[in-house]
C-alpha cells in the first residue's frame, strides 16, 4: 500500500496537541491534524478557528477556517475579534498550527509575496497574505508550522509572521510571548534550540535520509545530534490511520493538482463541452 509524505506529516503534526489544550488550526493541512488529535489522544482539546467557531469536532475537513458545515455544532460562537483578543492576546491559546510558504532558520515566515511586494515582474507572485497568522504566531504559546510546497530560505522576501526574529532573546525583547516550537516538512520534523533559537532537525520520515533534507535547506543545518540528542526515526502510519485521514480529507491521498482537475471535470457536461474542445 502506498502513501504520501504529506500523510505522515499530518499524523506527526497531530501529536503536538495535548489533551485539554486550546489549539488554533489554520487553513488546510492543520485541520486534519487537529481532527486526528481530537479523536485519538486529545479528546478534551478545544479546537478553534479564527472565524469564531470554538470547540469544533470536525467530522471532515473544513473547506476553510469559516466553513460552518463540517462540524455538528460547537460550544462557543464568537467573532474574529474575540478570538484574537480574549483568547490569543490574553494567553489562553496553547498552540496554533499554521502553514508557511517561506520559512527561515529562526522560524520567521512569509505568506505574503514571493519576489517584489509591488509585483514589478511576471515572476513576482502574491501569496494569500497574513490572514490570522501574524498575531497567532506572535502571541500563541507555541506555533507549529506545516510546510507543503513552501520553502526553507536564507532570507524571506517579506516577513509576515514573527518567529524567533534574529534568534536568542530578540523575540522576548520585542515583547512577544511564546514562539515557534516545531516545523513539519514533507521530509522531517524541525525544532528550535533552546538558547540560540536556531532550527534543527529533530526527526526523519521513513525512507528519507539526512541528504534529502539538506537538499531543501539552504543553510548549514544542525541536527539533534549536535546537541547530544538523537534524530528520531518516524514510524510509518498504520492502515487505519491512512483510512481515517482519507475519509476525512480525500485530497490527502492524492496530489492537490490532480484533485483540483478532478473537481473541475466533475461538473457534469461543463468542462468537457466548453474547455475540452480547445
Amino acid at each position, binding site marked *: 500500500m502506498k502513501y504520501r509524505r504529506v500523510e505522515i506529516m499530518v499524523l506527526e503534526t497531530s501529536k503536538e496537541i495535548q489533551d485539554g489544550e486550546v489549539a488554533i488550526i489554520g487553513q488546510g493541512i492543520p485541520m486534519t491534524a487537529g481532527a486526528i488529535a481530537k479523536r485519538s489522544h486529545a479528546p478534551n482539546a478545544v479546537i478553534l478557528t479564527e472565524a469564531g467557531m470554538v470547540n469544533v469536532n470536525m467530522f471532515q475537513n473544513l473547506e476553510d*477556517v469559516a466553513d460552518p458545515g463540517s462540524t455538528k455544532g460547537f460550544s462557543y460562537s464568537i467573532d474574529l475579534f474575540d478570538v484574537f483578543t480574549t483568547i490569543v492576546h490574553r494567553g489562553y491559546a496553547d498552540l496554533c498550527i499554521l502553514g508557511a510558504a517561506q520559512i527561515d532558520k529562526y522560524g520567521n515566515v512569509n505568506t505574503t509575496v514571493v519576489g517584489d511586494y509591488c509585483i514589478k515582474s511576471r515572476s513576482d507572485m502574491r501569496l494569500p497574505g*497574513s490572514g490570522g497568522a501574524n498575531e497567532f504566531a506572535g502571541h500563541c504559546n507555541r506555533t507549529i508550522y506545516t510546510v507543503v510546497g513552501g520553502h526553507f530560505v536564507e532570507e524571506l522576501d517579506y516577513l509576515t509572521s514573527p518567529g524567533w526574529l534574529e534568534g536568542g532573546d530578540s523575540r522576548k525583547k520585542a515583547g512577544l510571548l511564546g514562539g515557534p516550537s516545531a516545523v513539519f516538512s514533507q521530509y522531517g520534523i524541525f525544532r528550535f534550540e533552546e538558547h540560540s533559537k536556531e532550527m534543527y532537525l529533530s526527526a526523519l520520515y521513513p525512507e528519507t535520509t539526512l541528504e534529502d533534507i539538506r537538499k531543501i535547506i539552504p543553510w548549514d543545518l544542525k541536527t539533534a545530534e549536535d546537541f547530544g540528542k538523537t534524530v528520531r526515526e518516524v514510524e510509518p502510519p498504520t492502515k487505519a490511520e491512512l483510512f481515517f485521514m482519507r475519509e476525512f480529507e480525500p485530497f490527502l491521498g492524492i496530489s492537490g493538482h490532480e484533485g483540483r482537475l478532478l*473537481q473541475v471535470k466533475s461538473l457534469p457536461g461543463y468542462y468537457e463541452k466548453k474547455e475540452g474542445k480547445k
Partner: protein
Amino acid sequence: MNRIPELKTQKSSIKTMELKDAVSKFVNDGDTLALCNFLHANPYAIIHEIIRQERKDLTIAVASAIEEVDLLISGGCVSKILTSYYHRAGGRRYKRELDRALFDEKVIIEDYTNFTMCAMFMAGALGYDFLPVMKSIKESDIFNIRTFKQENKLKVIKSPFTGKETVLVPALNPDVAIVHVQRADKFGNAQFWGSEGTVKWTALSADKIIVSCEEIVDTEKIKRSPFLTKIPCFRVSAVCEVPWGAHPSPVAGYYNTDIMFRSMYFGKALSEVGNEKFMEEWVYNISNRKEYMDHYRERFGQEPLKYLEINEYLSDQVNLGYKKTYWQDDFCYNLALSREEYIELTEEEGELEL
C-alpha cells in the same frame, strides 16, 4: 477615513426593496465599499449587481477575500484594496485578476492582518478614532511596508498608564457595507449564524448597509432569537430577499460550498479569455439571482445542487420567558390589593381632579 461622529439616524421603517434598486440608490462611484462576510455567505448577488451597474474607483475593504474581489477587479470597479488575505488557489501556475491588475498597476493594495482589519472596522463601529491592537504586527513587514495609507496605516504610542509600547490602528468607516445573511425581517433586523467572522464589526462600521438574505421572515421569529441579530433595523438602508445570494460560498443552515463551481471558476480565471467568458456567462448575461440559478440548473442539471444540501441540526429551544402581569383577576399582586382597594387608594392619594 476618520470622521467626527455626526447625529444621524436611519429611522425604523420598512426597508425591503429590489437588489437592483438598493445598489443603484446606495452605492456610488468612488465609495469605500466594505465586504462584511468572512469566507462564509459572501455577498455574490450584490457584487454581481455592482459589477453590472458599472461602479468605478471603489476602495474595497475586506478582512479575507476569496474570488469576489477578483470579480470586482474584472468588472473594472476597483482602484484600491485594503485586505489581509486574498485567496490564491495553488501555487505559481495560478495567475488571476489580482496578479494582472497589480502588475499593470491598475489597483494598489495595502496589507493588514485579519485582526487589524477587524480592529479598524471595530474602531469605526464604536465611534473611536483608534483602537490598540496586538503587538506582533510591529515585528513584520506589514508594519514596515506601506502603500497608500502611509503614516496613517499604523502608529505606535506609549501607554499613558504603564509606559508600554502600544500599536494603534485608525478607525475605518466605509461609505457602504454589503452583507449576506440567513434571514431578516422587513425592517432590516438581520440575523446571521454559523461562523461569525467579521460580519458584525464590518457592517456596523459603515454609513450605509445593504443586506441581502436567504429569506425575509416575520418579526416574531426575530423576537424569539434576538441573540442572532447582528445588524439592527435602524442601521440598515436596504434589505433584499435573494435566495442563493451567496452561491458558490456556503450559508450555514442553507447550503454548502459549491466546490465544483469554484474550481471551475479558478480554472477559467487563469487566462484573461477564460475569465471574460466566465464574467459574460455568469454576471453580464444574467439580470438577477433567479436567472443565475435557472442558468445553473440548465447548465449542470439538478445533480450538483444535491451535494450542496445541508442536513438538519436544529438549535436548542430555550425559554426566553415573560412574567405574569401585575393584575391577575382584578388582584394586583405587586401591591397585594384588590382592584377595589386600589381604586379607593388612588382616590385618597390623588392630587388633581379629573
